[in-house]
């Protein structure tokens, strides 16, 4: 069972370039036809420097590019078969567009037992910066571990 001692634990930073082909695969999978994600000239007309990424794509960029996508689970000795995604949040500070190179830095910010210890909620917060050092987003995921 994950204990309070996990709070503050940080993980290997992930560097991710926003590649157009990978992004197109995501858009096609979702049936996303919105031209803002596909038409670079249109995106520029809207004030972006290139086509922007969809609002949940930051989560994918981190997993696609991580050497060990489930590092936080293995490091905390959590069995992948016993986790569910409980909550997810994104706070956006600046646009992320095709061609950017992002750095994701994650750490555990909370661990709480629920239902008399039948479940443990683990919160991992991630700070996202771009190639210019700009802080572009903060994300937080809560995983529910079935003990």
């Amino acid at each position, binding site marked *: 069972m994950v204990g309070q001692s996990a709070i503050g634990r940080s993980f290997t930073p992930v560097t991710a370039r926003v590649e157009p082909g990978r992004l197109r695969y995501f858009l096609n999978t*979702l*049936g996303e036809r919105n031209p*803002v994600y596909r038409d670079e000239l249109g995106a520029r007309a809207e004030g972006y420097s290139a086509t922007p990424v*969809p609002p*949940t794509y930051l989560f994918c960029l981190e997993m696609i590019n991580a050497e060990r996508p489930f590092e936080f689970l293995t490091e905390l000795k959590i069995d*992948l078969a016993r986790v569910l995604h409980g909550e*997810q949040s994104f706070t956006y500070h600046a646009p992320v567009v095709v061609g950017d190179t992002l750095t994701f830095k994650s750490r555990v910010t909370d661990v709480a037992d629920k239902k008399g210890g039948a479940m443990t909620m683990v919160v991992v917060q991630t700070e996202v910066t771009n190639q210019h050092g700009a802080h572009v987003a903060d994300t937080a995921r809560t995983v529910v571990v079935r003990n």
Partner: protein
Amino acid sequence: MSETANSHPAVGERIVHKTFPPITRHTLALYCGASGDHNPMHVDIDFAKAAGFPDVFSHGMLVMAYLGQALTDAIAPGRIRSFSTRFAAITQLGARLTCEGHVTELIEDKGEKQARLALTTKDENGEVKLAGAAIIAL
């Protein structure tokens, strides 16, 4: 984007609404690759059964991606300040999802006029799968 929400929405107004085709095993396989989330729970029925589930089920983040798509059909991506959700229930294969967003509050942050939205994703039986929120710049 041509279809952005009215810049003076009213509290209670529904400004996000989109329905999606049923989630298939093919969708889950594609999303596994596209998202980098290779958790076998969503594509390998043997793994799901061994973990105590009757079948594979959707990635929560696939469902959130659909909700995000519904959101940015109405609101340009650059106007979204935050987007969050709770995964209220597992989304099963075959689910036909409807995503909606209503204005709950008009607010101001550092001089920027914003709206807070309550977001939901429900399946064809009306069961809430995602209960979320967003803050958008007006």
